[in-house]
């Protein structure tokens, strides 16, 4: 089996057909993904264009998280290519929270500040403006009173909100969210969906979100797609009809 080269951080050449590097955030071309001997997804082709919102739906264990991990750069494809667009800064990523170690001396605020790293790098301290963004997100998601608690002291919903706030302060053009609303209350979910919609429609960011359960209200006039993941394949259809 061929092993594909590492994902280039930025696509170095335009594709022969379809959008050029400046016109997409991520393009998957015939991507095969798996762990050890097992192939989880075969021949996945997907275009994440600016202003596009893609919902990944499907049963547990079908490969939604695997595809998201590959797009973020955590899992190299077995075959095919994943191109990152010229405008693609590091993605704003929300992993499933079970992977986090709750013993770490990281307060809610410190975890959200981690998202600033993508913009300031390892050697600079965050500016007051950036820190105000952190405070703003803590307040909007109702975490201000819990800013000095560690992960071990937070409920599942608050941990989820912390990870979402961290992804939102990255300033990423591409948001990759693994079941972001799984433990959110209705009010917090509304804040998150509202912000994501705003970023998609006003700032032409793109969102790729694995989701369980009923989808939120469609974005008026939005470029929304549903990617059904199952039986090793991904089938994309525009939300509301058609197929691809």
């Amino acid at each position, binding site marked *: 089996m061929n092993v594909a080269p590492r994902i280039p951080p930025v696509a170095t050449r335009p594709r022969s057909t379809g959008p050029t590097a400046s016109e997409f955030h991520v393009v998957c071309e015939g991507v095969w993904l798996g762990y050890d001997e097992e192939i989880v997804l075969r021949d996945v082709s997907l275009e994440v264009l600016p202003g596009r919102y893609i919902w990944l739906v499907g049963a547990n264990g079908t490969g939604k998280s695997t595809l998201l991990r590959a797009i973020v750069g955590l899992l190299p494809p077995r075959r095919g290519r994943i191109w990152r667009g010229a405008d693609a800064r590091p993605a704003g*990523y929300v*992993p499933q929270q079970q992977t*986090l170690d709750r013993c*770490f*001396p990281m*307060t809610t605020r410190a975890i959200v500040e*981690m998202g600033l790293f993508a913009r300031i790098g390892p050697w600079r301290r965050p500016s007051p403006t950036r820190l105000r963004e952190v405070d703003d997100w803590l307040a909007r998601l109702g975490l201000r009173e819990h800013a000095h608690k560690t992960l071990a002291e937070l409920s599942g919903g608050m941990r989820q909100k912390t990870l979402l706030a961290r992804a939102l302060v990255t300033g990423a053009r591409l948001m990759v969210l693994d079941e972001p609303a799984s433990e959110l209350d209705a009010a917090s979910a509304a804040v998150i969906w509202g912000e994501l919609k705003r970023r998609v429609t006003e700032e032409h960011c793109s969102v790729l979100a694995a989701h369980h359960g009923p989808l939120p209200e469609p974005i008026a006039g939005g470029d929304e797609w549903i990617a059904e993941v199952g039986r090793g394949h991904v089938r994309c259809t525009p939300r509301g009809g058609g197929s691809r």
Partner: protein
Amino acid sequence: MIGALAAVAREFPEALATGLMTGVALAWLGVFVVLRRAVFAGLAMAEAAVFGGVAAERMHSASLLGAVTGSLAAAGLTLGPRGRERLPREATVAVVFVGAAALALLVGTGGGHHLREVRAALEGDLILVSRADLRVAALLLLPIAALSCLLARPWLYVMFDRDMAVAIGLKPALWETAFFLLLGVAVAAATRIIGPMLVLAHLVVSPTAGLLISRRWPRVLLGSAAIAVLATCLGMAFSYRWDLPTNATITATSVALLAVAGIVRKIACAAHRRGTSSPR
């Protein structure tokens, strides 16, 4: 007690300065060793450093170089990346530890020395450090301590959430390699100078106390270093005053400070709970 400490500073200035430097450097690195659940790997690295140093001496080579080689080899075996794990990592750590401990004794006694002399040499003694040891500590451990502070944030991010670290542009393999290299060199140098028991006290006990004292990571680093400094000063003073073995006294003082930190934390938590549950 202040009189005893002043006497230590007057009569054993090299030992006190070396003890403080190794304490701070190892306590800062130890915070990450504890958080990464690599405590037993640290133990194996210290034993491998002892073996490397003894083996190098037998071959008439620089013992520090041998210790660094042993420590880094142990780090690679016990902490390095792996493919499919057929055996629990703890098993590898234990094999490296017992293998290095046995080989150090065998190689040491093979030189014609008595077992008791070899054991004493392997255990090390802070009070016996020389001016040359102080120079080595200053040249190696002070820069490592400074680098540990500088690299603390990326190390913390990479160890806390590797996936997000990749997503925000960090390269975990690069940062972790830097950590293991610095840890390997620090453990090797410190083990050669002060012995494995005191190395482990600073690498594990002080950071554990630091983690009990605070839940904010800059304060954890400061608290760990403060515990290491306090344990070294008090331990050396107790040792001088009551003629006790220095390394064991400092280690016991570290553990006592850890116990105090644990009790203080329990009391603080109980007081906080009472404060939040009482009606206003």
